């Protein structure tokens, strides 16, 4: 369920054209992107285990339940990516010598972000999490193996989510938390635009017809 109206909770398959003119149900113009498999329901303890699941496992687990209108080529293309060698930028991002900041700060920020988000959006989200999705999420946690290094700069379980976001929204590439590559042409060409990007792969987008900016 990649996108969800933030006011009435209606969900839209990825790329749904319906969203472009606002939510058909309530007229809302903000939609939250939620990668398949992302749940807030995973307690902090389990998040560590989830990080063990390899991107490839997550991907294969998740792909089959992708929305019906996801194009076959999307799925085919992304799978090799998920399994193959890390991209050069990812290697740059995780150079050991760069890890000078204490790793606890990563964890702390992550948890803080997560709970902020929970409070703000819990009600909207809880109405729409499908049993299917919950099921998938729990399978992912079950399948997790503690195989990855703890000192990795990436956040728990984030790799697969990042890949999925990158596949679906190629205008911004999350290299690692705090490191982004932007495709300006793509950002310019897209009708909708991101207003809130979250490290766990979520973002909230706003449709253009209701668009305005802060006045001073």
């Amino acid at each position, binding site marked *: 369920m990649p996108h969800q109206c933030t006011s009435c909770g209606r969900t839209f398959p990825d790329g749904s054209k319906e969203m472009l003119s606002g939510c058909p149900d309530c007229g809302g*113009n*903000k939609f939250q992107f939620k990668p398949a498999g992302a749940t807030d329901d995973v307690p902090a303890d389990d998040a560590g285990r989830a990080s063990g699941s390899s991107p490839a496992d997550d991907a294969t687990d998740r792909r089959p339940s992708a929305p019906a209108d996801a194009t076959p080529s999307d799925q085919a293309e992304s799978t090799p990516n998920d399994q193959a060698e890390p991209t050069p930028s990812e290697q740059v991002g995780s150079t050991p010598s760069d890890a000078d900041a204490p790793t606890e700060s990563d964890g*702390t920020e992550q948890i803080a972000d997560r709970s902020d988000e929970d409070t703000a*959006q819990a009600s909207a989200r809880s109405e729409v999490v499908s049993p299917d999705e919950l099921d998938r999420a729990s399978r992912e946690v079950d399948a997790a193996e503690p195989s990855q290094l703890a000192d990795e700069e990436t956040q728990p379980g984030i790799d697969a989510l990042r890949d999925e976001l990158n596949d679906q929204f190629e205008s911004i590439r999350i290299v690692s938390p705090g490191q982004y*590559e932007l495709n*300006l042409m793509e950002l310019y060409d897209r009708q909708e*635009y991101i*207003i809130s990007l979250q490290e766990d792969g979520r973002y909230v987008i706003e449709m253009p017809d209701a668009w305005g900016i802060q006045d*001073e």
Partner: protein
Amino acid sequence: MGLLTNLRDSISRVTDGLFADDEPKRIGIYGPPNAGKTTLANRIARDWTGDAVGPESHIPHETRRARRKENVEIERNGRKVTIDIVDTPGVTTKVDYKEFLDHDMEKDDAVRRSREATEGVAEAMHWLREDVDGVIYVLDSTTDPFTQVNTMLIGIIESQDLPALILANKTDLEGSDVQQIANAFPQHETIPLSALEGDNMDEVYTKIAEYFG
């Protein structure tokens, strides 16, 4: 962040838009991070309205949300030109929190700044597509203007047929090279200025009136 608050804000913004008629031209101040866009926006706003637009900083990506100052009335040669100025976040193809660590920032803050900066670029690009009637493109004249970002943005501006002024800022600095900017974008008029010192603002206002009036 309060999604509902944002939603309400955006609804009220829409209704604002619906009932306002005969809007002044909306001029986006664009350019790479740290070029002096906000310094310029503040100077224009202070000169003609008395208010400021937003904080300036030597740390890049200080501006991470577009900010608008409405109804700035500029008088030139007995003629009045009213514009809305939009100070936009600096546009870049790469944002890296490590860049901010050099500025004595904690990692958490640096990562957050970098995320907001990325959102800001998305916002700036969106504005360019949808919502500006003209562009003031600000460059730091002590840096190389031949960059991918500049080429791409100027290209987009041209493809949209938006009136555009190129400002070569920071002429008060030692290494300032206005000619290099003029050479990089020969199809546009380049105006030198120091937004910080207020040098050559008269010409800037004359050109604003001429281009966007």
